[in-house]
């Protein structure tokens, strides 16, 4: 049984009080540039998923509390939550530092592009 805590309203409850919403930080390419979305980009958006054995980042919804979507960092082996954070936010830097493989690449890229902007 997972114990989840909503970072928006602060409600804490078991997994049945919340709704698991899949992988976090998936961006819809057509939102920013609808005229130039390739088949590969659309495939990645719809189907390709980071599926790590270890630290993972995902979306949850506070079903029986405030109803807001938020983010969580969770280990898919130990099932331990490392952080809960807002839907527009990035994870805390110490959790980003623990990310491996495709997630590490993703955050490196994301931090670089936000730095430029």
């Amino acid at each position, binding site marked *: *049984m*997972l114990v989840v805590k909503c970072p928006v309203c602060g409600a804490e409850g078991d997994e049945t009080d919340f709704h698991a919403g899949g992988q976090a930080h998936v961006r819809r390419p057509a939102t920013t540039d609808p005229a130039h979305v390739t088949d590969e980009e659309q495939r990645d958006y*719809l189907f*390709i*998923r980071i*599926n790590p*054995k270890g630290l993972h980042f995902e979306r949850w919804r506070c079903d029986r509390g405030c109803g807001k979507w938020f983010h969580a960092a969770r280990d898919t082996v130990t099932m331990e939550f490392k952080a809960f954070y807002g839907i527009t936010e990035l994870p805390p830097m110490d959790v980003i530092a623990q990310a491996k493989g495709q997630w590490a690449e993703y955050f490196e890229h994301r931090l670089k592009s936000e730095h430029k902007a």
Partner: protein
Amino acid sequence: MKPRYSVFSLARNAMNYHKDWERAWRSPAPKEEYDAVIVGAGGHGLATAYYLAKNHKMTNIAVVEKGWLGGGNTGRNTTIIRSNYLQDPSIAIYELARSLYEDLSQDLNYNVMFSPRGVLMLCQTQHEFRAFQRTAHANRLAGLDCRMVTPQEVKEIVPIINDDPNCRYPILGAYYQPRGGTGRHDAVAWGYARGADAMGVDIIQNCEVTGIERDGGKVVGLETTRGVIKTKKIGVVTAGHVSTIMDMAGVRMPIESQCLQALVSEPIKPVIDCVVMANTVHGYMSQSDKGELVIGGGTDPYKNYSQRGSFPALEHTVAALVETFPIISRLRMLRLWGGIVDMTGDRSPIISKTPVEGLYVNCGWGTGGFKAIPGSGWVFADTIANDRPHPIAEPFGLNRFQEGRLIDESVAAAVAH
């Protein structure tokens, strides 16, 4: 050549108090090089190796396994065999598998206890009734032996079912595949392992893959915990761990790994002689030859690699089955386990070549892989041996996700996952 199992070998060995039975398969050390290496010694991997050796005469091959053979989802499922899927490509592969199960025991000289006891898929809402009617028509066009049955027939086939027309989800009918049923899951893995081993295939257990060596977009070998193995062809058949292995070759997969649980009750006298699947309420049940009720349900809603599932998912399954079969309400449950299933977006498998030359993948069977083992091994072996998709495997290629050519079985699965 291995001695055949028969009533005569049983009698002969009885003379020696059964002390001289040969091991069913060897435990060889890995050779330096193979013509092909299969990663994952579950049912699908072992069947692939067996048919590579048998149908394509490729015997210089190995199956590497990080744990013990048949220790993953092959030994963790509810052993249901059926082929009444909605889409034509699915019907083709699942019916190939089901028909191979019919004489698999004779083919392997190993009793896989295929028991075509009938699979009954209940219709508990009008919507579900019409959806199954549609499947029934599709299956009839494909020549499958399946039919819709009335609530009265359901009660005759399964007398313990709750036929109260005033319950929350009354039985409105069912979709019946009389030649579906169950098999002995471990025996399928063991039989294929013994058969492949007899033809010279090396099955290397306790050998975890740690890297895939490439040279200019081509596979050249595998790094494992038991050293480097050179090979030009690698078939990855690792179910829930497929993303981890494919990541080593830089191929990203449309797969999410989730936990699916099953459980068995204490053994009781025979009460149900077919498989019943209740889609709307989320549960399925059959009775093993030992008398245990074998129960399964839906997956957990989030990623999980721990092989231990969520309690609410389990409670949901058991509650559904108590509603459907009130007489089981006071049974005690004996064992409970979880397997890590590889879910695709369209709930259909992936049998495919990959962008890396010499790398093949067979995964995405999700919650229903056991029934497909013989067919999956048959077409995947053909795909590897000839370096082109077998006609039945072709629709299940990785490219379907970017071409939008999905094989949508998410509504036709016996339980909506």
